[in-house]
């Protein structure tokens, strides 16, 4: 048997190796602020991005006996996940340090989770996808419980673990059915052999969909999201709310869209139900939240509804729209969490909407950043969120699902209400008298400003990213 082509999987090999290096280096390098681990992690991400673009963009090749695929879809997913992970690292550092939580393990676990997402993005067999998913999930469980003295964090981690393990089990069960029906783990073979005539595949599909949409957090598999967002340390919530959502697109594209095209009629119907429920429940429950992190949790659910709408169109354009939506939403959400991190300090989490009161007068720059982020989530033009929504609507209209598009925009108006409530606290309310001075390093501010500007600039010049997303599926 010939040797597999390792060069195609260079990014994964590099990230995996570096995670081990950082784990060991962290033990031997003194220093309380973990500068070496931190900068090595960022370097890892930068090099990985270069490797990915260099070896995987614009090609489509299989290796490791057809279990791993290097293609543009994987490349764009990975590069955006690197960026989101970098944001999660940068925003986290000061937060963790102030709480005596800054340990090298945070970066190692983050890189391991990243490796899991990368494997998912390049999976070409059921097992590869499953391994990637588990690597991601196990790292995330540990990260949620990173503040081991916090009871809410432990509770959130336990909830996340129990539900996550259950969904993984269901996913595995579904995979076993499909394997039973096709006698192959290879997704290309499965795509050929699976057909809607055999009920076995339909059942398998249902179970796989449960696993995939659990990762998305679509209704009715969303129960973990608000609790985990609220309980986890804010930088971890940021991490969970961004990269894994993009990775979930990968899981869907590989397992369902490419893996079972002949069952598209079945999974489209499932997606319609999931998307509609996510839009309704996510938006309506977000309206009544007073905790900003929980609000972001429910708002994530509603945005997942939009992503699923793009996927269910089933066209190249629809997939590209969903991809664009996931990437830009994750970028936007990172900005929202960053503002919470900015306002928090040791012993105080600024996670209530009331904690944002008068931010415009306390700190104009972060108020404007939050303005852009919230309007982007609302879908107001000038911010990138508008194009995300527009592309999804366009792909729906093009396949004739106009009423679904109308339904989606009506619930976007419901969404506007609670985003405006946040902005009302920021701009129109007077600051609480107890509000402390906001302290942040210059680096943090620069990255937050860059993050917000990216939301704005992508909202004015979205052409390049849209073209890249389209090129992936063309």
């Amino acid at each position, binding site marked *: 048997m010939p040797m597999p082509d390792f060069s195609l999987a260079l990014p994964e090999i590099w990230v995996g190796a570096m995670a081990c290096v950082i784990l060991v280096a962290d033990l031997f390098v003194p220093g309380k602020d973990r500068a070496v681990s931190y900068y090595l992690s960022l370097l890892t991400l930068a090099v990985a991005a270069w490797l990915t673009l260099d070896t995987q963009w614009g090609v489509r090749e299989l290796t490791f006996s057809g279990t791993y695929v290097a293609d543009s879809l994987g490349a764009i997913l990975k590069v955006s996940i690197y960026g989101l992970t970098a944001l999660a690292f940068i925003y986290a550092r000061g937060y963790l340090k102030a709480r005596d939580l800054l340990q090298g393990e945070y970066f190692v676990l983050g890189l391991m989770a990243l490796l899991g997402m990368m494997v998912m993005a390049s999976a070409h067999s059921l097992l590869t996808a499953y391994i990637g998913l588990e690597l991601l999930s196990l790292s995330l469980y540990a990260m949620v419980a990173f503040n081991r003295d916090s009871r809410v964090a432990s509770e959130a981690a336990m909830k996340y673990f129990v539900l996550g393990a259950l969904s993984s089990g269901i996913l595995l069960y579904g995979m076993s059915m499909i394997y039973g029906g096709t006698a192959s783990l290879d997704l290309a073979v499965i795509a050929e052999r699976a057909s809607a005539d055999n009920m076995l595949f339909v059942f398998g599909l249902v179970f796989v969909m449960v696993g995939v949409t659990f990762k998305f957090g679509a209704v009715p598999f969303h129960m973990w999201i608000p609790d985990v967002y609220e309980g986890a340390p804010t930088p971890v919530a940021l991490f969970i709310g961004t990269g894994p959502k993009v990775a979930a697109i990968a899981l869907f594209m590989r397992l369902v869209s490419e893996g079972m095209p002949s069952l598209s009629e079945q999974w489209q119907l499932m997606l319609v139900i999931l998307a509609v429920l996510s839009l309704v429940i996510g938006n309506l429950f977000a309206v009544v939240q007073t905790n900003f992190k929980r609000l972001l949790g429910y708002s994530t659910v509603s945005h997942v509804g939009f992503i699923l709408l793009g996927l269910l169109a089933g066209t190249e354009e629809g997939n590209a729209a969903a991809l664009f939506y996931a990437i830009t939403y994750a970028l936007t959400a990172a900005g929202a969490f960053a503002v919470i991190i900015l306002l928090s300090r040791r012993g105080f989490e600024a996670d209530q909407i009331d904690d944002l009161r008068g931010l415009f007068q306390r700190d104009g720059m972060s108020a404007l950043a939050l303005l852009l982020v919230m309007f982007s989530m609302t879908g107001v033009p*000038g911010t990138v969120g508008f194009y995300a929504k*527009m592309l999804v609507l366009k792909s729906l*209209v093009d396949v004739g699902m106009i009423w679904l598009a109308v339904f989606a*925009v009506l619930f976007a108006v419901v969404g506007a209400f609670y985003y*405006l409530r946040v902005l009302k606290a920021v*701009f*129109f309310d007077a600051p609480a008298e107890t509000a402390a001075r906001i302290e942040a390093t210059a680096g943090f501010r620069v990255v937050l400003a860059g993050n917000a500007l990216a939301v704005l600039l992508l909202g004015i010049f979205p052409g390049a990213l849209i073209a890249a997303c*389209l090129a992936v599926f063309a």
Partner: protein
Amino acid sequence: MFEGWPLLSLLVWLPIAGGLILLAIGERAPGAVRGLALLTAVLTFLLSLPLWTQFQPGAAMQFVESVDWIPAFGVKYALGVDGIAMPMIILTTFSIVLVVLAGWEVITQRPAAYYASFLIMEGIMVGVFAALDAILFYVFWEAMLVPMFLIIGVWGGPNRVYATIKFFLYTFLGSVLMLVALIYLRYQAGSFAIADFYGLGLPMQTQVLIFLAFLAAFAVKVPMWPVHTWLPDAHVEAPTGGSVILAAIMLKIGAYGFLRFSLPITPDASLSLDWLMIALSLIAVVYIGLVALVQQDMKKLIAYSSIAHMGFVTLGFFAIFRILANSESGALLAMQGGMVQMVSHGFVSAAMFLCVGVLYDRMHSRKIADYGGVVNTMPKFAAFFLLFAMANAGLPGTSGFVGEFMVILATFKANFWYALLAATTLITGAGYTLWMFKRVVFGEIANEHVAELQDINAREFLILAILAVAVLGLGLYPAPLVEVMEPTLQQLIQVVTAGRVG
């Protein structure tokens, strides 16, 4: 000069850039901020004048610019103006100069952000009128909400939060449906250019749905009865400058949408639903006029009178089908009347709100009952206020008369009863405006606050004088405005009649 200049782009981006610079300067130097704001506003206004002087008579789009923007979907950054859009753009740049002047000494809370909001808003509004691409139009259309949301919410009155969230949600709900309609039209036409949406020959049922989607967006903006309830709230709570922009420009954008989208894109639906539009317009004229009579709050009264006056605009636009059915001529007159009414209302309502603003700055009350005998202490102000009140009531010789008269005259050719109902405004309009004027300005000095009032200063005098000239000028000699838009409106009627499938 100005040959080959990207004038429209300059008009969009110059104020936005000025606004961003103001934000960057921040609140450190209020004097410099005001000066820079005024400079930007005046410069933008001057740059908009060549649009008028170099405008070629005719219906074609002029000053056209077109650049690929999102090539993957054929979205273009395409700007251009015709006889409808050009006057509205000049009205916009003109109003912003007044707004900056009106806020001069009055806005003490965060003046840089205040002026920046208005300048950014100016660029966006010019963009709405100049956009030739549906997506570009929608981007500007929605982006307009953001500065207005902040203007009302930060600098508004006591109940501003309620008002601004209501304003945002109402208009947002209206416009998202339009977005779906635009995307559907793109699917049919294969391009996002607005001109390509004309004459598609869509089946009736589709047209009706698209018409209703547009109606949701534009009727809220105009606003038409019964979706007008956000307007009195927003006006009452907004700062004076916000009220002026709302009344003078933003309401016009709704009516502009009818001309640019509803009528030419869905002519059959417009024909078959014209009874609805006429009914809603007449309800606005008659019923809202009566509502205005009983208001206790001056700004609310003017807000309701705005709704009634905008009813004339929509009446003029949608009466054309019945007029065409009865006679060859008259349709053009109705449309011109609607357009003149739009411009005139831009001047008159701005002037009325500025007058109330002058009083509010001194007394911090908008209640009619708190005033009385203002003429004794503020004679110059009272003279201006009287002129604008007369214009609001439609006195011949003022701009308020021209538009209303043209619409009523044309409507006679559609149906006698429409014209009769519309003409009741001459009574109710005079009633609510003059009765308010009498209670506020005439009579004995009502209380010691009124006795202490100072007459208008030079700055306020300048603002009101400019508006007085505009109101009288348009009232006495409307021909230039009417002529400049005639070819465009003529062509629009052609599109509406020729483009019908049934």
